């Protein structure tokens, strides 16, 4: 029905701590130091359609932020492909690659840390549009004013510095900065996690309004299932660098298939007290330095069988639009 705005195929990102000089010398005389490699994102494929909101959930360290940062052009993937508007990013020439990456913008988790403390708001929002000739330098002030109004900021505060704003206002500045370069895709990395609940609601409403007004596509990275349920059309669940289940939001929350998703949803706080068996996820998140063989989740999975230890399950479609990576479903 719709074309993909962003698509990633088999995308991987590894963080390597290479050996230092002493360790290399020690290796020469027989020690056995090895490079430490973290597969933050491990052959992930994901497609976000135009004007769709895809939520990405998972524990800390599961690679959801790394995935978002690769889409935003902050991190280079080690492997795999990113397609934007149907074009392979790596096959574009420099200028068009830049334009494609510019059309994917990011909203950050920490509204204070993500704003340059020594820059006035007007420069924070206006720097990129001027540099990329989206707006001539002479007209930048009215342009910034327009965007500030759009996100609910008073344009009279354009000459203020970030420390003079409240947390919610700073979040809006971060959104305004992203909007100023006319993106089509917004990657929101825990964009509301640092805010008070009441402010969170305002900012979420703002996201939804902007989506309606501008036809934006969102990749909404969060550990907050409630927020994702509210916003997302489709939800992907990540565990140790892999997507373990992805389905339309309603289906995922109503009928989760993967044991990890089930456990995650069971841990979700609920207002209505239900008589339910409380099955917490056993144990700790394994070290990403040394992930378990086979299915990454098997050491904590209540249903694990012998096959789970040896063979990593592939993500396969189990019903319309609903995929899970588990041998047992």
């Amino acid at each position: 029905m719709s074309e993909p705005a962003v698509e990633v195929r088999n995308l991987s990102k590894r963080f390597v701590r290479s050996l230092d000089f002493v360790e290399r010398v020690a290796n020469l005389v027989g020690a056995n130091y090895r490079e430490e490699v973290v597969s933050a994102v491990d052959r992930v494929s994901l497609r976000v359609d135009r004007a769709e909101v895809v939520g990405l959930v998972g524990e800390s360290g599961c690679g959801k932020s790394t995935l978002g940062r690769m889409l935003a052009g902050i991190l280079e993937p080690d492997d795999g492909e990113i397609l934007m508007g149907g074009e392979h990013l790596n096959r574009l020439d420099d200028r068009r690659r830049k334009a494609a990456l510019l059309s994917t913008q990011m909203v950050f988790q920490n509204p204070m840390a993500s704003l340059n403390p020594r820059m006035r708001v007007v420069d924070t929002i206006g720097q990129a549009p001027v540099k990329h000739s989206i707006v001539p330098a002479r007209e930048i002030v009215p342009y910034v004013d327009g965007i500030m109004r759009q996100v609910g900021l008073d344009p009279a505060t354009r000459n203020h510095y970030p420390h003079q704003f409240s947390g919610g206002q700073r979040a809006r500045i971060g959104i305004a900065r992203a909007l100023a370069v006319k993106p089509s895709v917004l990657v929101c990395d825990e964009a509301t996690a640092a805010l008070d609940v009441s402010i969170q609601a305002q900012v979420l409403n703002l996201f939804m309004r902007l989506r309606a007004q501008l036809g934006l596509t969102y990749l909404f990275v969060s550990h907050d299932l409630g927020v994702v349920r509210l916003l997302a059309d489709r939800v992907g669940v990540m565990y140790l660098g892999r997507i373990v289940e992805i389905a339309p939001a309603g289906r995922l929350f109503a009928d989760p298939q993967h044991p990890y998703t089930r456990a995650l949803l069971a841990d979700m706080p609920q207002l209505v007290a239900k008589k339910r068996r409380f099955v917490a996820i056993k144990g700790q998140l394994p070290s990403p330095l040394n992930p378990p063989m086979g299915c990454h989740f098997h050491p904590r999975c209540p249903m694990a069988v012998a096959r789970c230890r040896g063979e990593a399950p592939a993500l396969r479609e189990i019903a319309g639009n609903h995929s899970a990576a588990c041998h047992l479903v």
Partner: protein
Amino acid sequence: MSTVDQLPTETAGVEEGESMLRRQVREYFRSPLATAATITVATLILMAFFAPLFVPQNPYDLSQLDIMDGLLPPGESTYSGRVLWLGSDEQGRDIYSAILFGLRTSLTVGFLATAIACMLGTIIGVISAYVGGWVDSFVMRVVDLQLSLPSILVALVLLAAFGRGIDKVIAALVIVQWAYYARTVRAAALVERGAEYVEAARCLMLSNTQIVFRHVLPNCMPPIIVVATAQIAHAIALEATLSFLGAGVPVTQPSLGMLIASGYNYLLSGQYWISTYPGVVLVITVGAINLMGDRLRDVLNPRLAN
């Protein structure tokens, strides 16, 4: 959805665009000691810079000197009836005039050397942080080497090779001081480079030059300023030492250090004023600049401020 339209525009109590800088300046002057030190340094700079307006004679114009006025103690009058508040040296030179002219040389050398070393060190530090890899390792080993040698020793060796002269003293001071800035700036740039606002700038496809000059460097300024202030005092003291040892500025443009050296021979014969007063001015200058540096460090370091 009407909730979105209730725009939180409350900004009461916030002064129009008050920058961090202005806040910090106000904070800085809340310390009486720092204020006094700043006034002292400002006065010394003004008097040294406009020395001809403040002194009765040009101490290095031989036609204005009278050998008959030689070695007069403080408070004595010259042959022509002018009171010498700080005494005179063996050639009849007014010590007060000589101090202001000497201070001018000392301050010029100190500030110029610091400014050049600061720029050089900042450039090298940022490049080191940004390029990384073996360039970074190489630069930092050179810095380690530089900082492990006593600066006075290196400067003496350099001046022995260069010869005397203000430009040569400045060059020697730059060579012994750039490493402090390079190390400081590299450390600060490495921290800032990982900041979320720099990630945001990269996401906005800004070039590395724009990121370094608009985002990284302005946020590295606090440590640079602190180091630079301490290093001005250090440079002035170092220059005085070099000149005292006879390796610094030429005799035609004596600095405070050289004045101290020229009176040194008279100290034991009771004519203390030729060395002592330039020494007192040197101590006040270096001390006041150091006090300013301490206060700047307190104000600019967010971890020390509450």
